[in-house]
């Protein structure tokens, strides 16, 4: 029972925080101290948001823009995970690969995803390749780093046990390092999804003709701050949903192993 009460408490406090934030926002815009163009009121934004759900703006409704964004994101994110996780595990097991890859990787990962925009435009034009590349640039490093860390910090006794059982390299990676790294990999995926989703909007601001980012650019061009804010809210909500889904997956996996969290 205490667990349930704790949960209710945190939900209530969460709502309290949200209410305070909205109240402050509303008070500020209702006081007339700032022009509505500068800071639209939450009511106006909500109205605009619900209009955008059905009415087309910049070529599509808000859900359609979101769907286009999400598709790009999914490609980039899956590609990053599919390459990043195996690479990280391999680097964690084979010292030589670690030594070859690390210097390049450590240099490249400090370049903000958005900095790739000119090249994305140059190499892929306005096709789907550009945004995918930028999302990939954001989502890839956390996948590699967390898989690598997971593999490096496996209980050395488990590695010794595996070696004494005569386990070949490929099986050590798939049956020991990978499952041992799952918690680390999933927290990497959470960071990765966040960075990927953020980079996506950046990419769409420049190299796309659909998507939430594009919607926001068009909103800005039409001096419709409420549209821009609606886009922001949509991005926030989808990001929150993504993170919740990954956190849920993490908890399911931990529970299956008897590590109650």
């Amino acid at each position, binding site marked *: 029972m205490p667990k349930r009460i704790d949960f209710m408490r945190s939900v209530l406090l969460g709502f309290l925080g949200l209410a305070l934030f909205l109240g402050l926002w509303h008070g500020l815009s209702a006081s007339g101290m700032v022009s509505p163009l500068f800071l639209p009121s939450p009511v106006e934004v909500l109205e605009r948001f619900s209009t955008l759900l059905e009415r087309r703006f910049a070529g599509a409704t808000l859900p359609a823009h979101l769907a286009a964004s999400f598709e790009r994101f999914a490609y980039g994110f899956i590609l990053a995970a599919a390459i990043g996780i195996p690479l990280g595990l391999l680097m964690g097991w084979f010292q030589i690969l670690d030594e070859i890859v690390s210097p390049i990787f450590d240099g490249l990962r400090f370049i903000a995803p958005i900095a790739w925009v000119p090249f994305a435009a140059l190499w892929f034009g306005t096709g789907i390749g550009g945004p995918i590349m930028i999302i990939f640039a954001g989502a890839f490093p956390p996948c590699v780093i967390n898989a690598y860390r997971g593999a490096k910090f496996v*209980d050395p*006794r*488990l590695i*010794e*046990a*595996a*070696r*004494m*059982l*005569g*386990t*070949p390299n490929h*099986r050590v990676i798939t*049956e*020991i390092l990978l*499952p*041992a790294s799952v918690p680390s990999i999933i927290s990497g995926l959470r960071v990765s999804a966040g960075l990927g989703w953020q980079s996506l909007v950046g990419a769409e601001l420049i190299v796309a003709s659909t998507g939430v980012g594009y919607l926001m650019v068009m909103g800005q061009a039409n001096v419709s701050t409420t549209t821009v804010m609606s886009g922001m809210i949509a991005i926030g909500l989808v990001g929150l949903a993504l993170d919740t889904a990954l956190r849920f997956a993490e908890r399911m996996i931990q529970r299956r*192993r*008897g*590590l109650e969290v």
Partner: protein
Amino acid sequence: MGVIRFDNVGRVFGAKSNPFVALKEIDLEVGDKEFVAIVGPSGCGKTTCLRLVAGFDFPSSGKVLVDEQPIRRPRPERAVVFQQFALFPWKTVHDNIELGLRNQSVAKAEREERINRILELMNLTAYAKHFPHQLSGGMQQRVAIARAYVLDPDVLLMDEPFGALDAQTRVVMQEELVRLARRNPRTVLFITHAVEEAVYLADRVAIMTRAPGRIKEVLDIRSIREAEDWDSYEKIEDVMDLESFVHLRTHIWRSLREEKAAATA
């Protein structure tokens, strides 16, 4: 076969400027199917001895040989039972035991047969589908022993295998290990700091000194055990009451205490 030989083995850890001599001039031979226990105070390097045979670590000087061959890497012929069990938490009991057999490319049907046999021997049949965390410490260590035994190793290396268990469980495990070892003899190198355990289980007991670890004395238990017919007693406490047992135990205690006195003096 499975003859272990330490030939003037030394092991030094740390930087050259500040070396720590863990083992010095270790000479010891463990015969085929012989059960040898190494006892010593903590930090005396007894676990290092076992790791050298396992192939997890290598000597700084001298040689460690198994069947006259130097050890290059861990091999399933030299199976290890760890103090903290080291079971794979994401694999069931069955899958933990199966991994070594799969690595040796044993066919599925034979694998299942061997797994079933060892599960039965270790009283684990009902727990095949359980995950390690669902079992008690004693059960987990049984799985670890099964995982090593199923490979039919020449040498079994046990590093304080019962050290993490409570006293009652420990006794049960010791009795079971005696039954297993007498029925199915292997070359065993058993590391422990528990004197009774060493005397009860081993054919010979090697006493180690504190760092730098050396072998101070090797006691023959087997001849006494056979002369006094210890194995005819079912329970460990009955054996521990025998005068011959008490005598050996006291001898080892004294020997270890001298060490301790020397270290604190």
